[in-house]
């Protein structure tokens, strides 16, 4: 019999998180700090609009690009929050930010062209680049730079095949952000080398130092940027699967084509709910951000007291402590921590090789849960130190 599956897909490594997931699933008593989604429910008024749309029988396809009303609200939102000037024709509503990443890369990359992926990062950029026929090229970010991308690191990775840089800030898993001055240095290199940026800003609302700045807002970057955002993190709407991409027509037009043939349109119910989120959700976002920020401060303080090395993250809902002092791999540390203290964290290596020596700890949990987990971490760390 012929091999029924494609070599290109077989060659893709399964997500490093999977193995861990399977073990944790068998341990119902374990508490987890391993979740990459908000602990809040979607605010009720947003859910209510979704329900209302169903009651009204709005159960049909929308246009491929998404509801006109939603695209207009997205433009209003981006203008209000990030001073970005998009027209509703420059917006494509997608099935989560994830779809936008996939079709963005497919629309932009020719076979053999290189996509620069600063790591540690979210798990799907590399596989999506490969599936798009591109060659993923990793840039290893450094803890001493607070896991920000520097112009020099970018410059060093560029070849004559480089086409796209993926920028994912605020970052999962490190919690790093890129401030305006950092982005200006990057934009300069991008323009000089005639590159494009796929900017995944899904955590934009969860910024705890100043306001989030999009690289698309910098001079000369509008036409070079595909901006990706969505509703999952800001509005606690992960299960609704709704995101969007904005960018210059020349790229959006091709993305729309793939979206049209592969997906048709994003879920209609979610789109109606999202209109409500953008119209009346600012206060919910502010409330959730404040809560995350309180937990963030609590964890930073706790790690400091524990003497655990950690830079202060200003974004998303992750903190990325260094565990190199214990002379174990991230995997070994996470596994022992799970076995001995029944707390699940994700090894940094799940987000790229340069995540070795780090852990991703999510604070999408109530303060009460975090306290229990920190108590256990403290005990575990003390035990490891006394073993040495």
């Amino acid at each position, binding site marked *: 019999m012929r091999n029924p599956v494609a070599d290109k897909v077989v060659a893709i490594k399964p*997500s490093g*998180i999977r193995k*861990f*997931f399977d073990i*944790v*699933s068998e341990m119902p008593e*374990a508490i*987890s700090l*391993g*979740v*990459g*989604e908000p*602990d809040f429910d979607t605010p009720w008024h947003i859910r209510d609009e979704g329900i209302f749309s169903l009651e009204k029988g709005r159960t049909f396809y929308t246009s491929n690009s998404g509801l006109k009303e939603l695209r207009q609200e997205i433009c209003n939102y981006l203008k209000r929050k990030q001073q970005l000037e998009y027209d509703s024709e420059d917006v494509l509503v997608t099935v989560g930010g994830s779809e936008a990443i996939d079709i963005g890369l497919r629309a932009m990359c020719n076979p053999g062209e290189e996509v620069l992926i600063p790591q540690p990062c*979210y*798990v*799907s950029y590399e596989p999506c680049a490969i599936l798009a026929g591109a060659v993923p090229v990793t840039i290893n970010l450094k803890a001493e730079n607070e896991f920000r991308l520097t112009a020099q690191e970018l410059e060093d990775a560029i070849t004559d095949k480089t086409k796209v840089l993926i920028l994912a800030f605020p970052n*999962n898993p490190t919690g790093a952000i890129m401030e305006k001055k950092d982005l200006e240095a990057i934009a300069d290199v991008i323009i000089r080398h005639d590159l494009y940026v796929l900017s995944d800003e899904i955590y934009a609302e969860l910024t705890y130092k100043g306001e989030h700045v999009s690289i698309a807002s910098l001079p000369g970057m509008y036409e070079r940027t595909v901006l990706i955002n969505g509703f999952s993190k800001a509005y606690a709407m992960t299960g609704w699967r709704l995101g969007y991409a904005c960018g210059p027509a020349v790229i959006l037009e091709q993305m729309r084509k793939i979206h049209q043939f592969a997906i048709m349109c994003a879920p209609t119910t979610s789109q109606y709910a999202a209109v409500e989120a953008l119209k009346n959700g600012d206060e919910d976002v502010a409330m959730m951000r*404040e809560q995350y920020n*309180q*937990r963030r*401060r*609590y964890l930073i*303080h706790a790690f400091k007291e524990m003497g655990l090395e950690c830079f202060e993250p200003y974004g998303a809902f992750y903190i990325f402590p260094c565990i190199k002092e214990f002379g174990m791999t991230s995997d070994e540390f996470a596994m022992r921590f799970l076995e001995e203290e029944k707390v*699940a964290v*994700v090894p940094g290596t*799940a987000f790229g090789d340069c995540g070795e020596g780090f852990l991703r700890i999510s604070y999408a949990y109530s*303060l009460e849960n975090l306290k229990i987990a920190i108590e256990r971490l403290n005990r575990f760390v003390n035990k490891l130190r006394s073993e040495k």
Partner: protein
Amino acid sequence: MQLREQILSIIEKNSRMDLKELAVILGADEIAIVNEMAAMEAEGIICGYHTLIDWEKTSVEKVSALIEVRVTPQRGQGFDSIAERIYKYPEVNSVYLISGGYDLLVTLEGKSLKEVSQFVSDKLSTLDTILSTATHFILKKYKDHGTVLAKKVEDMREKITP
């Protein structure tokens, strides 16, 4: 939000949080928190530190009721003096002046239906200025002070996600 409002929004939900921790999560100085709270107590902004109890789950028998009260306002004093007459009874939990079909909403707790009824018929209704009362007994509390009592909230998320 100002520090004041931040403190209030937290202790409204959890009045037992210790001051050191409050300082940590608000990124503020502990002394500043202590001073702010003392000031708010003095100004009557913070009026008490109570505990939310679901008495249903205890062996203590308790009956709660809401009573709509219609009154004749008194010249020069409006509703204030009659409200005061009512809130002085220790059985009474709260007294609100209400817009709409009646004037005062009184909530109170007693050991039994009989005890509450007796209070209404013997004490409340006999007050001069009271025109009428309507008593509603609470059968079940689903949510109180922003907290769901009826069922435990479960974390339904997958335990590990990227």
